[in-house]
């Protein structure tokens, strides 16, 4: 049972790291601010979600697991809203130039 959970963790965390890689490649290579912002928020968030899912079998106790899920939800909420704010601010700047 433990080996199965460990395998699940390894697979999930490795895929999470892969999404982080994808997000960073997008951040470096995409042509303009909006696409880069998209790569950063969507891919990095998915990477973090997979990391949290992978870590859930590794923590002791329900409370620790719930705290991990809370971190994930908080990051998802705030990065979704903040990315919209950054995009609108960038569009306002572009319009003025």
């Amino acid at each position: 049972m433990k080996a199965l959970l460990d395998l699940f963790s390894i697979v999930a965390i490795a895929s999470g790291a892969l999404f982080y890689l994808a997000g960073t490649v997008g951040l470096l290579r995409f042509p303009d601010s909006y696409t880069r912002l998209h790569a950063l928020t969507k891919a990095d968030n998915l990477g973090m979600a997979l990391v949290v899912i992978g870590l859930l079998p590794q923590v002791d106790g329900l409370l620790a697991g719930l705290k991990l899920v809370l971190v994930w939800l908080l990051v998802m909420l705030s990065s979704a809203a903040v990315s919209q704010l950054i995009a609108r601010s960038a569009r306002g700047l572009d319009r003025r130039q």
Partner: protein
Amino acid sequence: MTTVVTVVIALLLLALAAWTLVARDAFLAVAGFVAYGLLLSLVWVRLYGIDVALTEAAIGGGLTGALLIGAVARLRGTEAAAWSERAGAGAWALAMLLALGVTAVLALCVLALPEPPPTLAPQAVQNMGATGVANPITGVLLAFRALDTLLEAIVLVIALIGVWSLAPDRFWGGRPGLRHRADPDGILAYLARVLPPIGIVVGVYVFWAGADHPGGKFQGATILAAMWLLVQMAGLADSPLTGSRWLRAGVVVGPLVFIAVGLLGLWSAGAFLAYPPDWAKPMIVAVEVALMPTLVLVLALLLNGAPARGGDR
């Protein structure tokens, strides 16, 4: 394997610090500084200083970043003049030599420490039972070295008065800064309605957990202050009237209660800030609860700045 990780983090930090120093645009330098602060909290976690990591994440990452960005916004007009006065190569070389010299002296001192280094940590841990708290940091801050914490709280209040004193006479007692405006149906207002309740719960949790786990009043107060500032930045609430009696009472209640507890200790246990044997935990909790409003108000007001409108004259 852990050394590789540590070396990677150390190199990354050095690169960030260098970038912050040489950045031409002030906005970019502040972005680098915020990144540096957030990354430094990771270093503290690697060094097993979780309480310090909490404080670094809260103050070094969020609050100082917001403070510096506000400063950059105000200094926009003077940036050109500042660049034209930049020091020549000679001054740079001298500054670098001095910095390297100080680093070398520090490194020599650290390497020349006797083995094992003299420390009071074992004695502090041994006597932790008498304080009633399980987190050794809280025990040191509020029982063994309570005088330092009291003086720090008083310094914060004096700093706030110093910032307020920068206001022109006619604005004394008024509201700091301009009224922020944001679309009440927009995303910023939405975030400022959803995030603060969660932030308040997390802040109070971090404060309460400080007794037995990493945490404490300072970190909790920073989170609460950040949530209040968020509400102000979205225009959902105006910045507070600095002449209000409740505000001023809240700012001084922390140090006053702390001093009162100290005098009580003088009367009941023989020394200023001594705690009678079974009363240590309740007195510590009382001091912490009284310091919370002070810290929240002072931190938020320091970021708001000097009063700039309204006032009682």
